[in-house]
């Protein structure tokens, strides 16, 4: 299972996390990897908790559920509260500081980015926050070849919105490169 990489995307229904997971999975397929994508949701169409998992491996993937994520994305406070206690040391935690305000306990390596705010401010559309988050994740982990990822985004985006979504993805890279938490007011703790 050494090659197995698990990514957990969490937040509220309607934030496009399931779509993001599909795009990530598609990108992994295009990058010639094995992949399994799953999701879970409650009875709500909107507003409930939303969770999607992607497992990427070079070998066959048997057990399809995420158990020890290498990356955890939290797009709202509720999901942050719920999933943070469940992860293991070494997991990269990326949170959207637009909605998540801590507490950032020092046992977890939490990196905070104003994902939704930037999507809105820089691109005028908060709906692309999900692609922006993917940019941050891929920048942080390099799971999928960046160009292949960009192509997959274009392919899966709703008609006419391919480029916008790619921009969001790139903006994610940019944010990551600027460093976590730099433009947010809250303190980010990255324990060693």
């Amino acid at each position, binding site marked *: 299972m050494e090659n197995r990489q698990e990514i957990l995307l969490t937040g509220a229904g*309607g934030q496009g996390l399931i779509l993001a997971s599909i795009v990530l999975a598609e990108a992994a397929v295009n990058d010639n990897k094995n992949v399994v994508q799953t999701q879970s949701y409650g009875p709500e*169409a*909107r*507003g409930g908790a939303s969770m999607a998992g992607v497992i990427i491996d070079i070998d066959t993937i048997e057990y399809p559920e995420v158990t020890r994520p290498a990356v955890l994305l939290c797009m709202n406070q509720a999901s942050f509260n719920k999933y943070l206690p469940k992860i293991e040391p070494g997991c990269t935690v990326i949170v959207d500081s637009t909605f998540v305000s801590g507490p950032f306990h020092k046992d977890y390596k939490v990196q905070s980015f104003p994902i939704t705010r930037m999507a809105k401010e820089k691109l005028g559309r908060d709906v692309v926050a999900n692609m922006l988050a993917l940019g941050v994740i891929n920048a942080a982990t390099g799971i999928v070849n960046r160009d292949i990822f960009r192509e997959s985004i274009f392919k899966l985006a709703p008609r006419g919105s391919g480029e916008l979504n790619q921009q969001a993805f790139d903006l994610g890279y940019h944010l990551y490169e600027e460093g976590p938490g730099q433009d947010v007011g809250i303190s980010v703790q990255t324990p060693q």
Partner: protein
Amino acid sequence: MALIEHLTQEYLRTKKLPHIWCPGCGNGIVTAALIRAIERTGYDQRDVVIVSGIGCSSRAAGYLNFNTLHTTHGRALAFATGLKMARPELKLFVIMGDGDCSAIGGNHFIHAARRNIDLNAVIINNHIYGMTGGQHSPLTPTGMKATTAPRGTLERPFDLLVLARGAGATFAARGIAAQPRQLEQLIVRGATHKGFSVVEALSPCPIAYGRRNKLGGAVEMLRSMKDSSISVERAAETEDAELKDKTITGVIYSFDAPEYAEEYYRSISDNKG
């Protein structure tokens, strides 16, 4: 605060809120109108029963602080018929979605109407199967899109109140979420009618219906709902041609006929005497 909360939201199970409905979903507006209507009937809270089927709209039962019965998909009226016959003194409001009532539940709907049993049906018609994500229902207008009608549905919709009439219903009214006061009023009138009453409440589902059909958000949907509606009184004074695309609201018909539970109990006491 506690006092205020008690007085204002006595009929809501406040601990269960916020509810599961999407932002802007009309279910909450209709549910609020129902609460106000029940309040206005003056019924003892203990006597009020909310029965519902399965669907987004039917989840209303879980939020209402009465005797609440959330049944199986389409069967609410059949459960309610049993309960009403067992306990005719109870006041039953039966909340159903358009699919719940007119697709899988169509048979129970026409038979409740035929028996003229004293149940108050409140159908939240959002023209779509909301809970399962937007498939067309028997009340989806022809041509509208749904996940199972990606090119627009070819089916002819029912007119629910005409169907009810054909089946023998003695009271029918139509309200819209965009006119919550009138809706409340119509539910009161349905509740005080003896026999089976049908109140169809048009309601926006911005997520599973509005978006796919480019009808805008909840506000736009409510606005156009209001714009395209006309009261039955005003409609009477309007040219037919003008009424073509209008939704007529108000009490569409109401008349008296023997009510089933009452007839039944009268008949068995006659037998005994």
